[in-house]
């Protein structure tokens, strides 16, 4: 009788040991799954943020107005006008007049900045003719 009881107790303790091991494994797996889920969620948020920023960049770019007429004209005429303006509006042409020299300096910088923009160069040409009293 005693032997049977001892066997039963031994069996039960073995089962409880086995349950403990399986519980540990299950717990570790659960922690791993939670960790991976959190990582995926975090990555998804980052990916979505990146996607929305990309979309925003795209929307902003598509909203901009493009002056194709000016681009076509600039392709053929901007270089010639720039060459003419950079000579006529050079600040060294006004060494004795400090005021005109300063204006010429500003205009010259703008000309250099917009050397491929025909429309802007035409505006600068008109400004130079008016403010520097020169014929271009």
């Amino acid at each position, binding site marked *: 009788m005693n032997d049977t009881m001892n066997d039963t107790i031994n069996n039960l303790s073995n089962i409880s040991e086995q349950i403990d091991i399986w519980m540990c494994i299950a717990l570790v797996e659960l922690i791993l799954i939670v960790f991976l889920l959190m990582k995926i969620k975090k990555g998804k948020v980052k990916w979505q943020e990146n996607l929305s920023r990309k979309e925003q960049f795209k929307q902003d770019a598509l909203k901009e107005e493009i002056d*194709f*007429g000016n681009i076509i004209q600039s392709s053929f005429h901007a270089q010639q006008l720039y060459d003419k303006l950079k000579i006529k509006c050079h600040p060294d042409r006004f060494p004795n007049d400090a005021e005109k020299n300063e204006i010429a300096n500003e205009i010259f910088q703008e000309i250099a900045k917009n050397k491929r923009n025909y429309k802007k160069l035409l505006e600068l040409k008109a400004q130079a003719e008016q403010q520097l009293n020169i014929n271009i």
Partner: protein
Amino acid sequence: MWNRIREWFRDRSARARLLRDFNYNARKAFIEGIVPTLLKAGVSKGCSSYRHQFSDWLKSGFRVQAFAGVELSKSDIINIGEVVLSENALVRTLVVLGFDTLEVHGDVGNYGCRWQLKDYIQLSY
């Protein structure tokens, strides 16, 4: 998925509109005698080494070609390319519409120049 399909169609439409606007203005300037050469914009295969995040996977080249009128010299070709690249709004639009290569070609043969568009824009959005 549905959004992606809609976006794809929207992009196609925006690309077609961009080319149409360019060609319309080029034709108008040529007819009015403002420019000596008729330019025509189109789409080409592009250069695979110029790819970026927005690149179209089939046709990613924006090609500007002389169509009629005075023949373009090498300096004219370079000048046209530089004018297009100096227009930041146009370069940005080209990039987001999937173009990664700008090609400028003469009317005869295959001579021309090409530029990598992402070099002329900051893509850190």
